[in-house]
């Protein structure tokens, strides 16, 4: 076995997920028929639980375009795409020397992240739950009045 290139390109979680989906990982409930090995299914299960589940290649391209002005290293952009931090404290371990390099632009950068990258599904559900609770309380108030 000869290693020709040990690093022929970095892949985001989204790209690996797309690769597994293109082989039929998501569609097969029995997990036997698809051309995907059991160990690959474990990777698919892990990636499904992350924010990569909702991302597409176009979204990532757009994010990279938008982030060019912040002068981030490739590894830092990759990490942000994989994790989708939504607050300054979450960005701190990802970007080195965050305060000195980004300073005030942190909020702008966070806005960008939160808008371009889709949130993890459970975050969406918790927002929907609170919205439903509000609707139920208003209905109760109306029936109370009647």
């Amino acid at each position, binding site marked *: *076995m*000869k*290693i*020709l*290139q*040990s*690093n*022929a*390109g*970095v*892949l*985001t*979680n989204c*790209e*690996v997920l797309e*690769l*597994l989906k293109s082989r039929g990982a998501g569609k097969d409930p029995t997990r036997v028929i698809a051309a995907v*090995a059991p*160990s*690959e299914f*474990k*990777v698919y*299960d*892990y990636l499904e639980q*992350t924010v990569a589940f909702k991302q597409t290649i176009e979204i990532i391209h757009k994010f990279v375009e938008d982030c060019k002005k912040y002068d981030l290293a490739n*590894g830092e952009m990759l*990490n942000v795409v*994989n*994790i989708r*931090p*939504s*607050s300054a*404290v*979450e*960005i*701190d*371990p*990802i970007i*080195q020397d965050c305060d000195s390099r980004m300073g005030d632009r942190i909020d702008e950068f966070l806005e960008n992240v939160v808008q371009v990258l889709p949130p993890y599904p459970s975050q969406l559900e918790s927002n929907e739950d609170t919205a439903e609770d509000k609707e139920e309380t208003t209905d109760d108030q109306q029936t109370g009045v009647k």
Partner: protein
Amino acid sequence: MFVMSEIEHTLRLPPHLLNRPLNAAIKGELESLFLDKVIDKLGLCVSVYDILSIDGGFIFPGDGASTYTARFRLVMFRPYVGEVISARLKESTKDGLRLSLGFFDDIYVPVPLMPNPYHTEPDPEHKNGTRWVWEYMGENYPIDWADEIRFRVHTVNYPPLPVEQGKDSEQKDSEEKDSRQKDLKPFAPMVITGSLDADGLGPTAWWV
């Protein structure tokens, strides 16, 4: 987390695969050879990305199978030092934590890399386990089993294969060695050491 590596390998295609189209047969052989195995310095092989070229097809004398030289790309799991990854808790002992990604379980957070200051208490649910609790500004933040835990990669090690010992030892020495080996963990070809000692790391419930 994932990197593509380009590899060239000479493989023998067993005769019972001759009725399959060449690409599919070679891909199947490569998957059985490399999938879910650790390659030193490259990481854990997750998937075969594509096959770039297949050469050869020669049959060596005395062999019924044909031999091909294939160039292909593999998707490797190889996190870089400093990357932040989400994982689940697998074990919590007095030596630290063990985290799991589902497909990869050998992530250890030793005591020096735990968030400081902390205190530990014996875990009521697990025998011999320890529950870790971080103390910050008067509040206690425990590390629970249901949490998604973010850690930063501190080092990635590929320990060498253990050498078989025991040819020279006597009867009673080998009994002691057996009892020691039962306590030892099974050999892990790739070990990631993680750190929880920074803002934003640890269970996401602490920060969100």
